């Protein structure tokens, strides 16, 4: 279980960082967006398994292959969400920043990041759910450990009890992440949206 979690969070972190950076670039530069748009569509619709198998063949049955396959699967989703976020930036706030002569760091921190935050959170939530699912499949496909591997072993013994036990543990972890991390963070970050008390 620990192995699976580590893999999931590592690929999640990488995909979010890369996706945010690329998404912001695509949102900013229309020519780059036109260049990458069809690749994004391909990326979004490429079957996860194909990517995993290709990476396993190229990089061998390694940790790196598994993580990069997960990242590649998740990346287009993050990029498109963040890109929409950047496109939705209000020119009104840019005017304000210009009138106040805000430095680019303060502009990023006070004006652009808060506008992007709901999109980052949306990407995080959909991304995390996707990653849980594919990490397990990839582990089942070729790995020396982790939940997916365990489940495949249990499957060979038709050990329903074991599989259900793993599922239950998994559900607990997912709920803990949602209510222990994502929700409280969202509440704090988006407090300004709340109805007046």
């Amino acid at each position, binding site marked *: 279980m620990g192995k699976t979690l580590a893999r999931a969070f590592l690929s999640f972190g990488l995909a979010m960082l890369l996706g945010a950076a690329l998404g912001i670039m695509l949102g900013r530069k229309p020519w780059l967006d036109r260049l990458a748009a069809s690749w994004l569509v391909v990326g979004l619709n490429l079957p996860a398994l194909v990517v995993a198998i290709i990476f396993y063949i190229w990089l061998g049955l390694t940790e790196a292959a598994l993580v990069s396959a997960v990242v590649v699967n998740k990346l287009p989703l993050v990029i498109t969400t963040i890109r929409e976020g950047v496109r939705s930036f209000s020119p*009104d706030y840019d*005017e304000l920043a210009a*009138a106040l002569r805000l430095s680019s760091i303060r502009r990023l921190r006070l004006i652009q990041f808060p506008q992007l935050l709901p999109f980052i959170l949306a990407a995080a939530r959909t991304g995390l759910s996707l990653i849980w699912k594919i990490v397990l499949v990839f582990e089942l496909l070729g790995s020396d450990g982790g939940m997916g591997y365990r489940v495949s072993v249990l499957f060979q013994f038709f050990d329903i009890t074991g599989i259900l036990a793993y599922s239950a543990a998994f559900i607990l972890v997912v709920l803990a992440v949602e209510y222990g991390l994502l929700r409280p963070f969202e509440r704090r970050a988006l407090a300004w949206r709340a109805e007046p008390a």
Partner: protein
Amino acid sequence: MARGAGIDLAIAEKRHPGMKEALFEAFLLTLAGGTVTAILGPSGIGKSSLLRLIAGIDRDFSGSLAIGGEPAAAAPPPGFVFQDARLLPWLDAADNVRLADPSMDRIGAAAHLASLGLAGHDADYPRQLSGGMQRRVALARALAAGSGVLLLDEPLVSLDNALVEELHALLARLFDESGTTALLVSHAAADAARLADRVIVLAGRPARIGADITLPVPRRERRADMLERYRREIDAALAGSA
């Protein structure tokens, strides 16, 4: 606050991309320090564009702009009050004010807000404030820039009468006490009659100064009948130059 700086604007040409005719051509405007000038004219004439040039929001024009005798790039940025309050909804009132002046701490920002009648509201988010209060916060933010120059883009539009009256009084007091140089874009002659020392009416394309009226009586001595007379004079100028 020190007496506000004067503004010298000389536009050789200002043209929006894709426009056939220039918005401004060989346009000169000089504002004396510490005076309040209202700019009126039909919509689309370039009032807001003019304000954005002086604010440094739009730098795409040929010509020169000096604030207090210095080139605008070197001068402290003028405070700008937008048509909508344009507060950042994710920052509370005090942080919105501090946006204009990072060296101001929260206590200073709260005191500054209190001086505009917003005591105790420094930790409120914009959506917790009424429309009138949001405008006050926006005004506080523009003043916090501390340059002594204030640019107002139709700050009183789409407000109900009571609120307009309240903000008129607030602005008049502010102009009298601080000696701010202010440029007020408006479409209402009543705003100009109440607040301005000088009224400029823009007309035509490229825009030129259609009328330049001085209102010599100090703001606080203007009685109702005088305001009415000023208002009619300005309205006549508007109609005459249209």
